[in-house]
């Protein structure tokens, strides 16, 4: 019995781990993004953010610890130091930060995570979407 169950458990675990990793790194189209966010508020935020934008990479970051406006001020400031960042939107309600990069920017997920860490928050999930 154990011999039958064990491979299934290992297989499922590997799939969950791989899906988790894909979630972090994948570039998405509109339908995929809506499927993943599962939230009309998050979709509305995304639509509002991208209304006047085109030919950009939109990075959507889920953030832990972003509970205070005053403490989150450094996020905007730090991202705007990068000339390839065209727009930043912070939502305390959603716990999300949206960053619009020019298409020629090679988005570095570790760099983004470090920016949040250096500002006192933790980036838990990152999605990149081209528009």
């Amino acid at each position, binding site marked *: 019995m154990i011999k039958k169950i064990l491979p299934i458990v290992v297989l499922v675990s590997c799939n969950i781990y791989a899906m988790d990793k894909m979630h972090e790194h994948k570039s998405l189209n509109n339908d995929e993004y809506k499927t993943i966010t599962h939230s009309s508020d998050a979709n509305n935020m995304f639509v509002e953010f991208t209304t006047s934008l085109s030919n950009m990479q939109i990075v959507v970051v889920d953030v832990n*610890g972003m509970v205070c*406006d*005053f403490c989150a001020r450094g996020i905007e400031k730090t991202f705007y130091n990068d000339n390839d960042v065209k727009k930043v939107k912070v939502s305390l*309600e959603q*716990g999300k930060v949206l960053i619009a990069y020019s298409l020629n920017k090679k988005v570095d997920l570790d760099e983004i995570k470090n920016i949040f860490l250096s500002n*006192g928050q933790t980036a838990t999930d990152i999605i990149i979407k081209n528009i």
Partner: protein
Amino acid sequence: MGIYKYLIVILVLIFPLSNEVYARPISWSGGSTFMYKTDSMKSSYYYHYSPLYRYSLGVEYVNDRHFNDQYFNLRGTYLLDRENTKSSQRNFYITGGLSTKSSDNFIYGIQGDWETRRLYSAISHTNQHTKTKDFSESEIQLGIAPYLGEYDDLHSWIMVKAKKNTIDNDWNVYPFVKFFKGDFLIELGTKNSHWDIHYMIRF
């Protein structure tokens, strides 16, 4: 945002000069903070810089009305531990300072805070050693936000502060309010005709 800059300047000029432990003692990596604080015993101006999000170094000018003394402190704060969740943040810090008056004057302490968008709590304990007397001060803060503001909104908090120092040896409990918008924060409280005021600007 300009009106808030003027508001801060006006308040700094109106209220008399005082000090102890500061809320939000570390900024983001590369960030600077200017603070002004006054209460029944002291006033202080404090500038600190955070080379990294883990610590800050700063200079503080203190006008100690209780001991009729003025001096500078070199202060440092180190983030011992931080926990971020989706809805909260918790921090523990150690802080210390040396006075420029003499090596006999120094302060050290611990502080911690936990907050959500709705609730805030903080504790601190500081010891101050001087030539003439040693004393310590403990402080507890609890707060609630009457509404949840979004980023860039004006944020308001209704707070209660309890302070005790070993000079008066008595707990003082009083309400105060905290407002912040953008890079500016102000706390205002009063008890027995003593103002407790704290301004903060980050840049």
